C-alpha cells in the first residue's frame, strides 16, 4: 500500500467514525450552513460536534501548516480527504471567508504574530470574517477609495463607509482597505487592515436587494480606533494584498455558471409546458433558445475543465480567469431568463408555499449581480482586451 493509500484508509475510517449522521447529505438551505464565529448558530448540535472534530484535526483548512492549526496535508492528501468526504456525502464542517480568502492572504503577507493569532481561530471556526473593499461611489473602481485612516502614532482613527460587506452584521472581524495616504494617487496610499467589529464606532445596516433579503450590508466607521499591529502587508501597499484576494474571488464566482445546476432546463420546461406527440417541448420557440443555451453551457463546462488542465500543466494565463468569470456570469443570467420563461406565470409568484417563497423569481433576480460583483463584466472585458489581446490603450 502506498503512503497515499494508507492515508486514504485512515481518513475513511476516521470520517466514518466521526462524521455524525446529521451532517451527511446535501445542505438544503443557505441558512443551514455553519459559519462559526462568536455567535455561531448550528442547525443541529451534531453540527457543532462535527466542526469541533474537524477543526481539531485542522481539516477545515487541510493544506495550511499545522503550526497555525491547519491540517498540514499535501495537495494530494487534501484531494483524498475531499473525495472521501464526498463518498459519504459529508457536509463541509465550516463555511468561512477566513479560510477561503483572508487565510491565504495572511499566509502570504501576514506577520508571524498575525498568523499565530488569527489562523488557528479561523481553522476552529471561532472567528467569523467579512470583507470591506467596495464603497458607495467606488464599485469596481477601488482606486476611488474614500475610507480614511488617520495616523495617531500607535493607532489609526478610521472614518468612512463600506458597502457590499457580506454578512457584516454577523461577522466578528472585518478585513478591509483604508486610505492611509490621502495625497497618494490611484492604487497607492491604500492599506489592508483588520478591524474588530465590536470596536466602538463600527455599525452595520443590511441591504435589501431586488431579490429580497441579502447577506450584504453597509458598514460604517465612525472614529474607529485600529491598532497598527493589525496592518497586513506593507503600509500603503494594501492593493497588493487585495489583488491577491480578488483573483481568488473572481475564479470562485466564475464557477457559478457551472454550479447553476439543478434539473436540466429542458426538463423544467417540459414539466411546466408539456410535450408534443414527438416528445418535443410544446413551445418550439423556447425549445430553440434552450437548446442554444445548453450548447453554450456544455461548452462552458468543458472550458472550465480545460482551464483546470491548463493550470495543472502550467500553461494558464492568469487573465483566463476573467474570461471564465465573464462568460459564466452572462451564461448564468441567460439560463435564469430561460428558467423564468419555462416557469411562466408560476415563476412570477413572490410569496407563498407554492412558489417556495418566490424562489424562481428571486434566484433569477439574484443572478443579475453575477456580472457586477467581483469585477463587472465590463471590467473583465477590459482585462481581456489589455492582457490577452494587447489592444492599444486598453
Amino acid at each position, binding site marked *: 500500500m502506498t503512503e497515499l493509500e494508507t492515508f486514504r484508509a485512515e481518513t475513511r475510517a476516521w470520517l466514518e467514525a466521526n462524521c455524525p449522521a446529521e451532517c451527511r447529505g446535501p445542505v438544503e438551505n443557505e441558512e443551514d450552513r455553519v459559519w462559526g464565529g462568536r455567535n455561531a448558530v448550528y442547525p443541529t448540535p451534531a453540527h457543532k460536534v462535527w466542526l469541533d472534530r474537524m477543526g481539531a484535526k485542522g481539516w477545515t483548512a487541510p493544506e495550511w501548516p499545522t503550526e497555525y492549526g491547519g491540517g498540514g496535508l499535501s495537495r494530494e492528501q487534501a484531494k483524498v480527504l475531499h473525495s472521501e468526504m464526498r463518498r459519504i456525502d459529508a457536509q463541509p464542517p465550516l463555511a468561512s471567508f477566513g479560510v477561503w480568502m483572508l487565510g491565504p492572504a495572511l499566509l502570504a503577507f501576514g506577520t508571524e504574530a498575525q498568523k499565530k493569532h488569527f489562523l488557528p481561530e479561523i481553522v476552529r471556526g471561532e472567528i467569523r470574517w467579512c470583507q470591506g473593499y467596495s464603497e458607495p461611489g467606488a*464599485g469596481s473602481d477601488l482606486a476611488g477609495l474614500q475610507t480614511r485612516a488617520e495616523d495617531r502614532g500607535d493607532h489609526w482613527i478610521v472614518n468612512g463607509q463600506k458597502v457590499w460587506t457580506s454578512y457584516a452584521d454577523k461577522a466578528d472581524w472585518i478585513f478591509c482597505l483604508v486610505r492611509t495616504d490621502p495625497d497618494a494617487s490611484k492604487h497607492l496610499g491604500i492599506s489592508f487592515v483588520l478591524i474588530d467589529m465590536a470596536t466602538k464606532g463600527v455599525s452595520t445596516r443590511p441591504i435589501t436587494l*431586488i431579490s429580497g433579503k441579502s447577506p450584504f450590508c453597509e458598514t460604517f466607521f465612525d472614529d474607529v480606533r485600529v491598532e497598527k499591529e493589525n496592518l497586513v502587508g506593507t503600509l500603503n501597499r494594501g492593493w497588493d494584498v487585495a489583488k491577491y484576494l480578488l483573483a481568488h474571488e473572481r475564479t470562485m464566482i466564475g464557477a457559478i455558471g457551472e454550479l447553476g445546476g439543478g434539473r436540466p432546463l429542458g426538463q423544467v420546461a417540459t414539466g411546466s409546458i408539456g410535450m408534443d406527440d414527438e416528445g418535443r417541448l410544446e*413551445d418550439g*420557440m*423556447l425549445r430553440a433558445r434552450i437548446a442554444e443555451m445548453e450548447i453554450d453551457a456544455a461548452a462552458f463546462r468543458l472550458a472550465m475543465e480545460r482551464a483546470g488542465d491548463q493550470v495543472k500543466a502550467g500553461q494558464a494565463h492568469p487573465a483566463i480567469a476573467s474570461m471564465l468569470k465573464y462568460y459564466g456570469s452572462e451564461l448564468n443570467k441567460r439560463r435564469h431568463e430561460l428558467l423564468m420563461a419555462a416557469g*411562466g406565470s408560476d415563476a412570477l*409568484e413572490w410569496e407563498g408555499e407554492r412558489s417556495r417563497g418566490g424562489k424562481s423569481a428571486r434566484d433569477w*433576480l439574484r443572478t443579475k449581480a453575477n456580472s457586477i460583483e467581483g469585477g463587472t463584466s465590463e471590467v473583465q472585458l477590459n482585462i481581456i482586451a489589455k492582457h490577452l489581446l494587447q489592444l492599444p490603450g486598453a
Partner: protein
Amino acid sequence: MPLILTEEQTMLKEAADGFLNEHAPIAHLRKLRDSKDADGVSRDLWRAFGEMGFAGVIIPEEHGGSGLGAVEAGVMAEALGRTLTPSPFLGSGVLSATVLKGGSAEQQAAWLPRIAAGEAIVSLAVDEGPKHAPSRIATVAERSGNGFKLNGAKGFVLDGHVADAVIVAALTENGLSLFLVDPKTAGVAIERTVMVDAHNAARVTLTDVEVDADAVIGSVDGGEALLEGALNLGRACAAASLNGAGDQAFQTTMAYLRTRKQFGKLIGEFQALQHRSAHLFSEIEIARAAVMGALTALDSDRPDAALRVSVAKAKAGRVAELAVQEAVQMHGGVGMTDEYDVGLFMKRVRVLNELLGDAGFHQERMARAQGF
C-alpha cells in the same frame, strides 16, 4: 393612419403622464407593496381614473366612457408602464370592457358605466397553465337546469382577488363561451397571488359553479372571436406598457451615464457603453413603431391587425427585456438594491412579458401566419 400621435392623443398622453407623476409615481407602488396592502391596488386611484376619463377610454360615450380607440388605450398603458402604477386599467378598462362591449344591452348597461367611473373591477379569466394558451382552455361549462355549471381552474387573473365580477372563458358543447360570474357565487374560490412586480393577479377555482343562461356574454359557443378581439387589444396595450417601462428604465440609465463618475470619467464617456446605449435606443424606437403599427391597425380594422399585434408584443417584450437588463448592469451594484428603481422596472417587464403571450408565443403566430 399615420404612426404618430395626433394633437388630441398627445394631449391625452400629457394628461396621463402628468396625473400619474403627481398622484401615482413609483412611490405609490412602493407604498402598496411595503405596507403589504391586502388589495395591492388603490380603489381611490381607480375612481380618480374614472373621473379623469382614463378608466373608460375605450368605453362608448353612451355608457359614460370617452369613446376613444386603441391608440388612446395604448397611450394610457404606456403611461402606466412608465410609473409602474398598479391599476385595474388593463384588466378591467381594456380586456373586460372589450368583452363586455360584445355583451347584451343589459350587461353593457350594468357594467360599462361602472368601469368607466372607476367603480367596478371586472377580471378576465383565460389562462389555466403557466403559459398563455387561449386555444387550450379546459374549463368546462355544462348545461344545467336553465343555466350552466362551471368547473375548472384559472391562473394569472388580473385583479381577480378584488374583482366585482369575473369573466370566465369555458368550453361549451361546440365551442368557447364567456360567462359573467359573481365571485361570491358558491363554488368560486379566489386566491391572491403576490407577484414579483407587486402588481395584482389571482388564481380562480370553479367547482360546480352554477350560473344562469343570461350570464353568457355574446352567444353560446361563439366566444372565441370576442375573446380574441379583447386579447389582441390587451396584447397591444401590454406592449405599450412594455415600451413605457423599458423606455423609462432607459432614460433613467442615460441620466445616470451622464452624471456618474468612475475611473475618473463620466461612465457615459466609455464608448462601449455609448454603443450599447445607441443600439438600445434604436431598438426602443423600432419597438415604438411596432406598437403604433398595432394600435393603428386595430383602430382601422386592418386585416393584418392580429399579426401586427404579435409583432408589437414580441418586439416590445424583447426590447424592454434588454432595456431593463442594461439598466441594472449599467447602474452596477446600486442597480441591484431594492432602494433604486431600476429593479422594479425589471420585475414589471418580466410580468408584462409573460402576460397575454410572451415573445415566443407571438413568434409562433408570426410563423403560422407566414405559412412556415
